[in-house]
């Protein structure tokens, strides 16, 4: 019997950082093929539609880009937070906070028309940041678990917004539980030549900016240091609490911008189903990107393609549209598993000549114990 031993790598080769996400996406598609089969559809045909329907027309490409923008924003939001080990699972709520702020500003009639779009963007970022600041403060000051608080705050935001939409903020014209539409001047302009709204360009710019911040500035350095080892960072004189708060503000602002894009460029009003899971999808995007801001661009595009293609696929083949959600979940799981190869190198080892086992305790179950195949070694 040959065992697999994992040895820690000194340096992760660059090609692996690209190969691992691609491989995990491929593994995901293979695994999900079983579900497509279960739906009685032809796997190749279903995947062809799922992945290629985006490229049928310029309109479809634009549609995908528009869909990718909030994914990119929330992906960036999550990765900045995760880099600081601030477990922000609350991009969903922060996006909503940004959307509410943007919509509220966009409806104000007393504001000069030209100031609307910039003000929407700034206020969305601000509100998103503030909504993220609360759990970060609880974490830094009171050591309250951030995973739980950010998750719960999503629900609080959702119920709060619904209360507003069914109460004081209900659109008097339509009577539906939606906010009134923003002014026409508050709708985001289209990017010349691309036909997509301003938010898409902003998301791309944000990716570049976040990449620059994380790898080229002292703030990014501090965020990485705190995330990897807060004790060493504190010893070296870095204010750990302040860095976490800063990362939370940046993260929340990015998620808030996703909300601004949805209000200003897509819906023009706040609805309770505005987000539909972009916050959680951001976690998948960030993980698939290996927390690299530039990697978030293809990762967001991939999921935009899948989400857009899923509708077409469902209509054409009868495979439920929720295949997209499954792919998202499976991709995250295969990606965290695959990332192991970035830090460890698998190596086959031949064990010694086996001696008789001394007792009944010596037979480990296939999953538990070191007999299970993967025994990490090294120091």
């Amino acid at each position, binding site marked *: 019997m040959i065992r697999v031993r994992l040895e820690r790598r000194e340096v992760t080769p660059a090609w692996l950082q690209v190969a691992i996400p691609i491989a995990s996406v491929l593994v995901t598609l293979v695994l999900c093929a079983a579900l497509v089969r279960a739906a009685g559809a032809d796997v190749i045909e279903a995947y062809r539609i799922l992945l290629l329907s985006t490229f049928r027309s310029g309109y479809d490409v634009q549609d995908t880009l528009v869909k990718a923008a909030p994914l990119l924003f929330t992906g960036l939001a999550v990765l900045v937070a995760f880099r600081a080990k601030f477990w922000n699972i609350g991009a969903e709520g922060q996006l909503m906070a940004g959307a509410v702020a943007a919509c509220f500003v966009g409806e104000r009639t007393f504001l000069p028309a030209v100031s609307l779009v910039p003000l929407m963007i700034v206020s969305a970022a601000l509100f998103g940041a503030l909504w993220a600041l609360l759990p970060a403060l*609880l974490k830094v000051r009171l050591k309250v678990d951030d995973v739980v608080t950010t998750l719960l705050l999503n629900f609080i935001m959702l119920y709060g917004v619904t209360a507003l939409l069914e*109460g004081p903020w209900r659109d008097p014209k339509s009577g539906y539980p939606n906010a009134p539409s923003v002014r026409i001047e508050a709708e985001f302009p289209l990017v010349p030549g691309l036909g997509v709204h301003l938010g898409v360009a902003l998301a791309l710019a944000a990716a570049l900016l976040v990449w620059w911040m994380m790898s080229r500035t002292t703030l990014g350095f501090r965020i990485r240091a705190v995330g990897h080892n807060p004790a060493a960072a504190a010893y070296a004189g870095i204010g750990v609490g302040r860095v976490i708060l800063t990362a939370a503000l940046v993260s929340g602002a990015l998620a808030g911008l996703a909300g601004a894009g949805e209000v200003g460029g897509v819906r023009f009003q706040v609805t309770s189903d505005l987000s539909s899971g972009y916050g959680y999808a951001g976690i998948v995007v960030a993980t698939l990107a290996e927390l690299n801001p530039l990697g978030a661009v293809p990762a967001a595009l991939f999921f935009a393609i899948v989400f857009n293609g899923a509708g077409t696929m469902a209509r054409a083949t009868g495979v439920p549209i929720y295949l997209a959600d499954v792919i998202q*979940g499976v991709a*995250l*799981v295969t990606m965290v*598993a695959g990332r*192991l190869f970035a830090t460890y190198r698998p190596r086959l080892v031949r064990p010694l000549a086996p001696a008789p086992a001394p007792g009944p305790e010596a037979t480990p179950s296939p999953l538990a114990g070191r007999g299970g195949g993967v025994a990490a070694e090294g120091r």
Partner: protein
Amino acid sequence: METLVTLLDVGFFAALVRISTPLLLASLGELLSERSGVLNLGIEGIMLFGAMTGFTVAYFSGSLWLGVLAALLAGALAGLLMAFLAVVLGVSQHVSGIGLTLLATGLSFYVYRLVFGQPASPPNVVPFRPWPVPVLSDLPVVGPILFNQMPLTYLALLAVPAVAFLLYRTPWGLDLRTVGENPRAADAAGVNVWRMRTQALVIGGAMMALGGAYLSISQFNAFTFGVVSGRGWVAVALVVFGLWSPWRCAAGALLFAALEALQLRLQANNVLHVPYQVLLMLPFVMTIVAMAIVSRNARAPAALLVPYRKEER
């Protein structure tokens, strides 16, 4: 004030116990996982998966108990997947848990749509009916509150002392607690750390899924996409709030259920002129407040979130 008092009748407390059922099961399941050193954030997805599986099997087999069994199996399977990721591979428990929730959620939606399509009115089952305990259910006050409940509710109530007994009074429980506190010590004493953690995750997963199934075949009579709506996350908070003790955890679940029961009553009676969403929000706000209060003396298992790799120090 008077209206408030009239709200707190026997029916209110019976409802409270009913509502606490999924929270009890899920938070005890999470507690077992965390006591072994693994945070299982797959809980929200596992509950939904349990709700879907339990409902679907009950619908087609006509047997609620087969549905329960199926949900238990589904949860155990999900726990096994979490164990593969967090225990065997030892990758980030946060991310793999979220991944499991997304996966289980997507899968629940997918399978439900595949099986039932998009019917005009959602399919439903005849849910569990109360099983009055002979003699005891006739007791005043206590009878209707505790002894005229659904079978799964009894199960959840019994799970509290059962888990406490398992943890504190059995060799298995001692080994499990040791694995969660100091896996190296457990290993040195001949305990298989991976096996213990896997067992905890499998049992915990089954309990979470059972909590979900309660929602779709006992509290309600159908599966809807929003049937769990954050109860899993609340269960995670309850474990922290309960300082990793099954008794305190159960107390937290009852407290949370009381808030929800109150909310339902207020909504029905409309005595307070508050939007019902604010009442829905209330338990979540209270959970965060409660966590902020207990955070100071929160003593998580020392090895929580730390993967165990034998030859690494």
